[in-house]
């Protein structure tokens, strides 16, 4: 009970407030931009060569306004937004009218989630593990070599790193496909061949995200471990002749992981930005490319849908991590 009151409820309150703030910001910012979604739509239809008789454009604008739900004051639209959100409805996409935003997000989501979840988990686990070992054995040659490699790889721009991978393994050595999430013409199914195909397509994007993400975990973990290593309980266990394996796993890495659990939550937002670029490089059918298109076309509803969705998803992930945190740190559990 105490735990609920002192740990859970403050976090839930914070969570709700943050989501509220985020949604409001996301509602306001695109409305401040001069991008007019209707002009954009008309220009798109025109410039792609569809015949729009100049004399009839006015009527067309009115039609679109109605269809897009862009009538009324900003406040009306804002209230409308909340009403729709509570129904789990983000409205229609302007540019991809009349597809619903939720449908577009739903279509892109499995790809991004699949890619991000696995790469985040892999890079977090591997980065922390390797970083932990490298921090513990920081005098060893391999640890220093890894440290150096991480230092050089980490600053590489996502685009350059991903595209170099694509060049190397898609063109120079033709191991992996250039673009897409699965082979052209394949039908999603739970067959081994389809899954293998998806994995083959996901390999390079995942690799670039994992390596670039992993180096960050590697570096921070290494620093943390070096600090934890100097803690008296580690020194004590060493003096007590406790086996090195136990010291590394149970004393050093386990304690050093605690700040990394918190950091994982905070890193999710960062990872998203990396995923956006990576998805563009690999033409991956995820949320990143969807968002990029929405941004370019000034598709408010879609931007809002994706961003609100991301805010909710990431803050929820952070909340969950926060709530799981006491499982790892008994000091919080029993305070």
């Amino acid at each position, binding site marked *: 009970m105490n735990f609920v009151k002192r740990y859970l409820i403050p976090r839930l309150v914070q969570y709700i407030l943050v989501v509220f703030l985020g949604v409001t910001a996301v509602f306001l910012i695109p409305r401040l931009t001069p991008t007019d979604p209707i002009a954009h739509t008309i220009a798109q239809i025109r410039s792609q060569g569809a015949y729009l008789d100049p004399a009839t454009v006015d009527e067309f604008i009115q039609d679109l306004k109605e269809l897009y739900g862009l009538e009324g004051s900003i406040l009306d639209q804002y209230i409308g937004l909340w009403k729709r959100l509570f129904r789990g409805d983000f409205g229609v996409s302007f540019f991809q009218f009349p597809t619903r935003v939720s449908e577009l997000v739903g279509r892109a989501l499995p790809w991004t989630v699949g890619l991000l979840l696995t790469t985040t988990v892999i890079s977090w686990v591997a980065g922390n593990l390797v970083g932990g070992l490298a921090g513990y054995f920081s*005098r060893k040659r391999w640890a220093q070599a890894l440290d150096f490699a991480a230092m050089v790889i980490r600053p*590489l721009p996502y685009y350059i790193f991903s595209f170099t991978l694509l060049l190397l393994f898609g063109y120079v050595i033709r191991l992996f496909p250039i673009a897409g999430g699965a082979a052209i013409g394949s039908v999603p199914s739970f067959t081994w061949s389809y899954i293998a195909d998806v994995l083959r397509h996901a390999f390079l994007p995942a690799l670039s995200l994992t390596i670039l993400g992993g180096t960050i975990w590697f570096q921070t973990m290494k620093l943390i471990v070096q600090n934890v290593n100097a803690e008296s309980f580690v020194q004590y266990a060493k003096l007590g002749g406790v086996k090195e394996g136990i010291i590394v796993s149970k004393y050093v890495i386990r304690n050093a992981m605690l700040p990394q659990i918190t950091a994982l939550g905070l890193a999710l937002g960062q990872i998203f930005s990396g995923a956006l670029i990576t998805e563009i490089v690999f033409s991956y059918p995820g949320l990143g490319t969807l968002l990029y298109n929405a941004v370019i076309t000034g598709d408010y509803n879609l931007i809002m849908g994706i961003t609100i969705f991301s805010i909710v998803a990431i803050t929820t992930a952070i909340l969950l991590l926060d709530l799981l945190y006491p499982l790892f740190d008994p000091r919080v559990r029993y305070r």
Partner: protein
Amino acid sequence: MKILRDLFRDYRFVLSFCVLCLLLFLAFITIFSPYDPTRWGVVPRDLKPSWEHPLGTSSKGQDVFWQAAFAVRNSLTISLIAGVVSRIIAVIVGMVAGYKGRLTDRVLMFVSDSFLVIPLFLIIVMLAMLVRHLMNLVTLGLLLAIFGWAWDARLIRSQILSLREREFTQTAILSGTGTLPLVLKEYMPFAIPLVFSTLINNMSWAIGMEMTLAILGLVNMDIPTLGTMLQWAISYQAMLLGYWWWILTPVVLAILLFVALYWLSVSISEYLDPRTRLQRVGA
């Protein structure tokens, strides 16, 4: 001065210091540039590195060396603006929250927590689109500054919190020292190393962010920065056309800059943290 002398005994500090000096020198000599960095076609296109053009020329007819010099200067300017301004925000927020405590602390920490939790990248992208026509070095720096302070404000706050409990705070109060002088004289010396090392990290972040925004085409492409230089090279297919000098220059410069900043921050924070210092000494 003694600090500098001590730091110079660390090879990483020396290396990164030299690299930074080199980059600063590069930034400095832009005032002698024979070319206007925003003009195209000032030199023949697509030339390999030569004595005349040490880093070759680009498909836009620009000298890559001088572009790179401007890029370094501008990227450093952006990151410095972002770093310094966000440091000012972080110091003020952290110190006020830490020293005032109570409601002020709660409100400020809620704000900074929100900044930490919300996927800022999306918001930055949206804002960048919003102000794209106003984009220059200063606005971009400020834009990044708005989003780069939250974590460091927390760090400073927690440091102030622990300093507030230290007895010398009370000694100072008993010596009749007022709040502002107390914070400035007693706490700032502790906060400064932290401010400095987070400044370096924040600068790296700002440079990286600028590169990402440039690749999304959300900055002023006419101003040479590491990001825009890279984006021009990418969109002109320098990689596939074999104009390696054009694309490698910003990449290598970025790596150099990042590694130098990283080593600088590691070296300084190790210097400030005696525990790791001793570990290193033992090696």
